[in-house]
């Protein structure tokens, strides 16, 4: 494609799933109104959900899921060697995601519970950046297709790729939602990165922080406000731990 003297190369892309539900990859086939245009941007080299062909000459690798087995580590390292841009795709890849709940239990206990009597190789869940270098993160459970499109368009046109730096509240207010704290619930909107258009809170469900911490969050003030409203600190802990996205912000007071 050529415009104003610029030539846009199609993005040689591959997508790989690790420990996850494949919901983020599924999002790529979503948003039908622009699906054809979106696929036009891509030269798909390897993408189980979109095409059966498989090639290894990709530049961009979308990594979906977290890492929970040794063979996954090796597969991921091989992808890293090939990819010029490795993208942590979705909350499992970015933070460990829901799978990280596993890390609260002993592996033995887990295997006995889930696969009784079977020999299963497993290890504590890791996020992608624990294993290889990540060039770009697109958080979300699942990812927001609109954002993925924007990122891909920016990569194709060589524009700066950024994520919103404001928290979810900011987008929540633009939808004229009643704050869930006013309705007596704990919502992670004030500490979570926006960009999802506050989809959960607009549906009157508290934000669980799937997009991870917003830029420079104020965790002490956030814990303070939960306390001031006499809401349950256990509920707060549970929500914060849900996607394992606030690891670096463990709050001692809560």
């Amino acid at each position, binding site marked *: 494609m050529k415009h104003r003297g610029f030539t846009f190369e199609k993005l040689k892309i591959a997508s790989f799933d690790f420990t996850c539900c494949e919901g983020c990859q599924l999002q790529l086939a979503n948003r039908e109104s622009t699906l054809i245009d979106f696929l036009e941007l891509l030269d798909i080299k390897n993408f189980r959900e979109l095409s059966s062909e498989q090639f290894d000459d990709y530049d961009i690798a979308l990594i979906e899921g977290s890492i929970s087995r040794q063979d996954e580590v090796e597969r991921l390292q091989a992808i890293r060697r090939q990819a010029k841009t490795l993208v942590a795709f979705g909350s499992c890849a970015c933070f460990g995601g829901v799978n990280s709940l596993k890390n609260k239990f002993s592996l033995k206990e887990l295997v006995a519970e889930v696969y009784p009597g079977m020999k299963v190789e497993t290890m504590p869940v890791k996020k992608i950046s624990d294993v290889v270098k990540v060039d770009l993160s697109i958080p979300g459970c699942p990812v927001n297709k609109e954002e993925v499109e924007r990122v891909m368009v920016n990569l194709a046109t060589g524009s700066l790729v950024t994520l919103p730096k404001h928290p979810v509240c900011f987008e929540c207010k633009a939808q004229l939602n009643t704050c869930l704290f006013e309705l007596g619930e704990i919502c992670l*909107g004030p500490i979570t990165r926006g960009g999802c258009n506050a989809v959960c809170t607009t549906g009157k469900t508290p934000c669980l922080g799937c997009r991870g911490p917003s830029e420079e969050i104020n965790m002490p003030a956030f814990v303070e406000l939960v306390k001031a409203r006499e809401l349950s600190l256990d509920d707060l802990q549970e929500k914060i731990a849900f996607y394992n996205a606030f690891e670096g912000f463990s709050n001692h007071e809560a």
Partner: protein
Amino acid sequence: MIYKVIAKSEFKRFTDALLRDNTSFGPRQVDTDSRGKAVYQFLPVTSSDDVAFDYTATASSAKHFFLPFREELSRFVFQDQEWDQQISYEGNPIVLIGLRACDISALNILDDVLLKGHFPSPYYLAKRKNTFVIGMDHLPLPDCFCKSMNHHTISTGFNLFCSDIGENYYLSINSSKAFNFLKECDTRDPIDDDNCRLVERRKIISDSFRSEVDVTALPSILDIEFDSPVWEKWGNKCLNCGTCAMVCPTCYCYSVEESFDTNLKGATRQKKLYSCNLVDFAEVAGGHNFRPKNGDRLKYRYYHQHRGFAENANQQICVGCNRCGRACLAGINPKDVINDLRMEKESCLTNISSSPDRI
């Protein structure tokens, strides 16, 4: 201005027709909060029954009807080696019913900033002049402080303003459009008794304010207190969420984003309301942030609201609705912040220049 009196039943008939025939928005209850209080927002209405005439104040202001949270400024279409820019100033006619005096004051302030400067905004103008504004007076909430800001009464900026004088509304008619609409209705000229009731109503409203913010010499106090520890104290509580600016009727800041369409055949330039409390508000190319600290960002919001910037002739732009204070999860509100600044100022006065000893 023309004054008329209309029976409430007749006013209902008038609004029914008006709201039915026009795209209209008015206060509606959207929720009941955990303390049992009703939450209102300006939402679409099609008859007078939809309008919560007895509402208190909406959680978010009516600003977004004039400054949408997100608005396309222009479209670009690429063709061959050329490109074409398309701009349209859209302003479909709408009716806004139920605005409070402070809400209308806020529109007048936005008019000053957005229409009277060097670069009047055609986007704002298109919407402002196509909006039929009906104001309604009310008894203030316990935390309203518009009286302190002198925005509890209003004489311009609306088409029609209704003062509740019991069985009737006392109407202030401020546009020929409103006058013509009302011709169809049964109204009469005010008599002495109506005038007395209006004066009484105004007095009751004025006497009902329970929150006061002492704003005497506030601009200069803000200048003097530029480095006050008060900013850090309140800044430490701030979540950088931007909620205050989003619900505020006069915050008009925005950011502009340009993005290609997915098919790369066009692009859009969009404006999105923004807030000086957000971490990247003062971030520039290369990543330098001129206001990296919470307290600095919060301070600038108070500066703009309560001291004013040159672009609107150093006027305060806060109208005292306290929407920001009500919405702030961290409990940051103009009354407490300003009182704190004043105390800080006064304690420094007593400390440094204590009165000379007698004899």
